[in-house]
């Protein structure tokens, strides 16, 4: 075939340029360590690479959030742990105070320590994290959420807010609990009503009836008779000689037993229900005793400690007074027990949050590794094959150059 001279040169030059361009691309890829530099290099792979990168950025963000969350949760957890031990100590002290005989100064010493514990608990409620935010203020983190009033009661100035954070796709975890929930909204140990006892002063017996539970068990049928919706339980010896009881609402209408019965026999430990409320009374009532139930479903840790202090500061009594004191201390201890159960519950909840963040963290790490493998396979260069290809290309460039330089010498004109 006839080949024109310019075509001959053109073709050889093109050949060499193409080889050079291949070598250049190889050098670029090898120096970047990447197979795909722009989306145009491999648009299918590029789509996956971009998706994976975005996924990795998200995972990184979740990991950072988990680190933040863990530190918040741990700050709260340590405050909760201290609060729990304060409550243990309070219980120890009050039991100790109860076992002391007629020694007012010893009881005062215990009351003084309780006052310290009270302060400690308030300062725990006002814990701050490293950013200076109050941990238990709900959403109001700028000012101390707990404030002691002149009457030694504590008011909560925060709100019920609970902060959340994203720790995985569609997975959020709480990083705070409001002080309201932990310190201020403790379940009253007797349920939804709080008893006060009017004991027959003419009977000295220390063994008196105690209301251990008064709860609205059937809300659908609970209709308050008045405000406040108080109930009075009266005990009187029945004609049969057995102890009888009756319950009147705040308007004085009898709600138990059903009229025309005026009295029902008292059986210690039995559950007595009226108006959607169920009550449990234990031990032995005396003729003429009565118990008044006032609605109160919640108590707070601070007032429980204050109750303890007030109880300790009361002198030892005799007869009916002592019976009253024993009933009171029973309720205080029950309240402390209830608080400890609740604290345990919150701590368990916090623990489970930490478990969730931990498992999310592991999951993110695993997933990151998995998709990193795919990304690397799609985007990164296989160095061994890349270098061997580079060598081939170099060889072929050299060959083209050598061939060209040898052939271009051969011209008939040289022989003229």
């Amino acid at each position, binding site marked *: *075939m*006839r*080949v*024109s*001279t*310019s*075509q*001959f040169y*053109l073709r050889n030059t093109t050949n060499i340029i193409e080889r050079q361009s291949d070598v250049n691309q190889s050098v670029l890829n090898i120096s970047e360590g990447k197979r795909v*530099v*722009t*989306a*145009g*290099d*491999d*648009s*299918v792979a*590029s*789509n996956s690479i*971009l998706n994976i*990168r*975005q996924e990795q*950025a*998200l995972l990184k*963000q979740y990991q*950072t*959030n988990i680190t*933040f*969350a863990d530190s*918040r949760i741990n700050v709260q957890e340590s405050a909760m742990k201290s609060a729990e031990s304060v409550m243990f100590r309070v219980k120890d002290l009050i039991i100790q105070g109860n076992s002391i005989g007629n020694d007012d100064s010893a009881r005062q010493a215990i009351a003084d320590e309780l006052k310290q514990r009270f302060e400690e608990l308030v300062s725990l409620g006002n814990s701050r994290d490293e*950013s200076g*935010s*109050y941990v238990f*203020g*709900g*959403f*109001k*983190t*700028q000012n101390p959420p707990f404030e002691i009033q002149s009457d030694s009661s504590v008011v909560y100035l*925060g*709100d*019920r*807010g609970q*902060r*959340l*954070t*994203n720790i995985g*796709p569609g997975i*959020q975890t709480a*990083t*705070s609990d409001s002080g309201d929930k932990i310190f201020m909204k403790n379940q009253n140990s007797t349920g939804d009503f709080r008893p006060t006892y009017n004991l027959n002063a003419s009977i000295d017996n220390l063994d008196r009836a105690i209301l251990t539970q008064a709860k609205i068990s059937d*809300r*659908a*049928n*609970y*209709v308050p008779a008045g405000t406040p919706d108080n109930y009075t339980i009266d005990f009187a010896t029945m004609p049969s000689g057995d102890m009888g009881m009756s319950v009147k609402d705040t308007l004085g209408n009898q709600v138990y037993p059903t009229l025309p019965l005026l009295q029902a026999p008292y059986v210690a430990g039995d559950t007595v229900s009226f108006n959607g409320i169920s009550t449990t009374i234990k031990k032995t009532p005396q003729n003429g005793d009565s118990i008044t139930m006032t609605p109160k479903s919640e108590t707070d840790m601070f007032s429980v400690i204050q109750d303890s202090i007030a109880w300790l500061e009361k002198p030892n009594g005799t007869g009916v007074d002592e019976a009253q004191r024993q009933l009171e201390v029973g309720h205080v201890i029950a309240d402390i027990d209830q608080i400890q159960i609740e604290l345990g519950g919150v701590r368990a909840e916090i623990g489970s949050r930490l478990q969730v963040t931990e498992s999310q963290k592991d999951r993110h790490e695993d997933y990151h590794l998995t998709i990193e493998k795919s990304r690397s396979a799609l985007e990164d260069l296989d160095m061994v094959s890349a270098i061997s290809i580079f060598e081939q290309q170099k060889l072929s460039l050299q060959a083209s150059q050598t061939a060209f330089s040898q052939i271009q010498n051969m*011209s*008939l*004109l040289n022989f*003229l």
Partner: protein
Amino acid sequence: MGVDLLQLGVSGLLTSQQQLGTTGHNIANVNTAGYSRQSVLQETTTPVKSGSNFTGTGTRVSQVSRVFDQFRYNEVIFNQTLNSGAQTTASKMQRLDDTMSLIGKGISTSLNDLFAAVNSLVDVPGDIGLREVMLAKADTLSKNVSSVQSALDGEYNSVNEDLEATAVMVTEIAEQLAALNRDIVKASANNTTPSDLLDKRDTLIKDLSQYTSVSTVATNDGALNVYIAGGQTLVTGTTKFSIGVDAGNPDPRQTQLFIQSPAGAKQQLSSANIGGSMGALMDYRDGVLTDTMNKVGQTAITVADAFNTVQTQGMDLNGLQGQNLFKDINDLEATQRRFLPDQDNTGTIAGVVEITDTNQLTSDDYSLSFQGGNYTLTNDNTGQSQILTADNPLAAVGTRTYSTSDGFTFKEAGGTPQNGDSFIIQPSRLGATNLEVNLTQAEQIAASSIVEVYSNDNNVNTAKLAITSVDNIGAAGFPSPGSKLTLEVFEAPTGTFNYQMLDSSGTAQPLFDSSGAALGTSATFTTSPLNFQAAGMSFSLTGKATGQTANAPERYDIEYSVGSGNNKNALAMASLVDKKMANQGRSTMNDLYEESVTSVGSQTATANIEASAANTLYTQAEARMSNTSGVNLDEEASNLLRFQQAYSASARVISTANEIFQTLLQAAR
């Protein structure tokens, strides 16, 4: 009559000289572009009859012609147009790919950085330093988006400039072709072939074929009529037309090519027929480049709208309801620039286009036409059209609004339309230029929610009440510090749920259904979820809130919740990252941008493959052409020897004639 040996030798000598000269011309032009090698055709001169025999009288040059294969030449022209188009597309796509993949990386990165800043606000919502960081990151995002946008704008302008420059070039070629036609017609008058002029004309046609598709028709007098862009006359004989660029209509930036006759009549060139680099430039500009700008715009609009919407649902550190983080996507100027009326319209209607739902928004452009009292909206990309119905048909013409299913609303803004008027709607084209940070103070970031729902501890069901949006914090009954609302729900009779919204003093608040119709102060529903409005908020109650009769309904407190430690709104902002909020719930905001990168990438890959195929075809055609018409130096060297020897031989004939003559003279002495 005998043989004139001297004359015979001289004829050979002259012919060889001519052949040597042509060989020299070939050698001299070995590197001349478009040169076709020439060859000398030799023929015998008329013989003389002596007796019954003819005797030869020598030789002469009959023709010096160029070696030229019209078929191969046409093949080169055709492939040149294809190849030039493909190369132009590929190089433009390569640049766009680099822009999107390398510069555009900044968009994804800065979007992620912004979310990282939002997440640290989730951790410490009241921290001014972190808020400053978030504002700075939002600003970086807007800068990155606008740097991509200005790269695309620059690209758009450079295409327009290329088109103008090419139009000038084509017009010049047309002038030269007309001049050459005149010269060739003159030179061909005596049935001669002006090879070098023909080469020149063919070279010009080849140049022209880079820019547009070319077809030619030769006339008998040697002139060549040239047609471009699928049959538009460029040169006929010595008459030349010119090519120019006009501002586009309705979009002035979308410039259009026209061809103009010497008399001044303009004819617009349709981009479908232009071909070559001009066609490729127009296709690129009106296709992938515009599409990419729209997609980046769609991303920007979606991002801005998402952040702005969440901002308005929260409260900032100054105790004010959140303002837009980014500039309002529907500020007046932006809405006006989305609507472009055709300059030839006879009506006077003006309009604005407001984006109402970024989830339904597309990256397409739309045409709007008015005929018979109705607007017809056509999606330029899918070709789907729909007749729009006014939302307020009773309003006066010029004040009607037309909502569409594509996430935007067209609003008339004065004037009256006339039959045949047409308009262009570009909802997302300029979105990226509008992404600017609106907030100036770190305190203005609304990290805190305004109200929160707390379920009562005594609730017996798992039904959940959620506030879907805060619509009016000034509404009567809206919660404030110390004054909450309580929703009470109970089932009675079975299957019917009763609900009412009580304020702190126990007064029932007026209820409205989700479309705003009043329901009174207590209402019932039978199917879950229940969507309703009350006290300036929209609510959604999911699950079965059966409660325990009217005595003990399920209760949900709605409390004012603003606080420096409230991170709920920041959390809602952080959760935008993986929310599929665009393309009918298929794409996250990052997906949107990635889709535009990938789309450019795959089109670049296609363009590269096409360019390489077109180049191979062109190179082969060129090689075939060159193999016929090109000069081969070895061949010329061998010709040089051949003709030199012929020359020597002819000289020898003359010297022989001389010797014979001398012999004769000596014999006669």
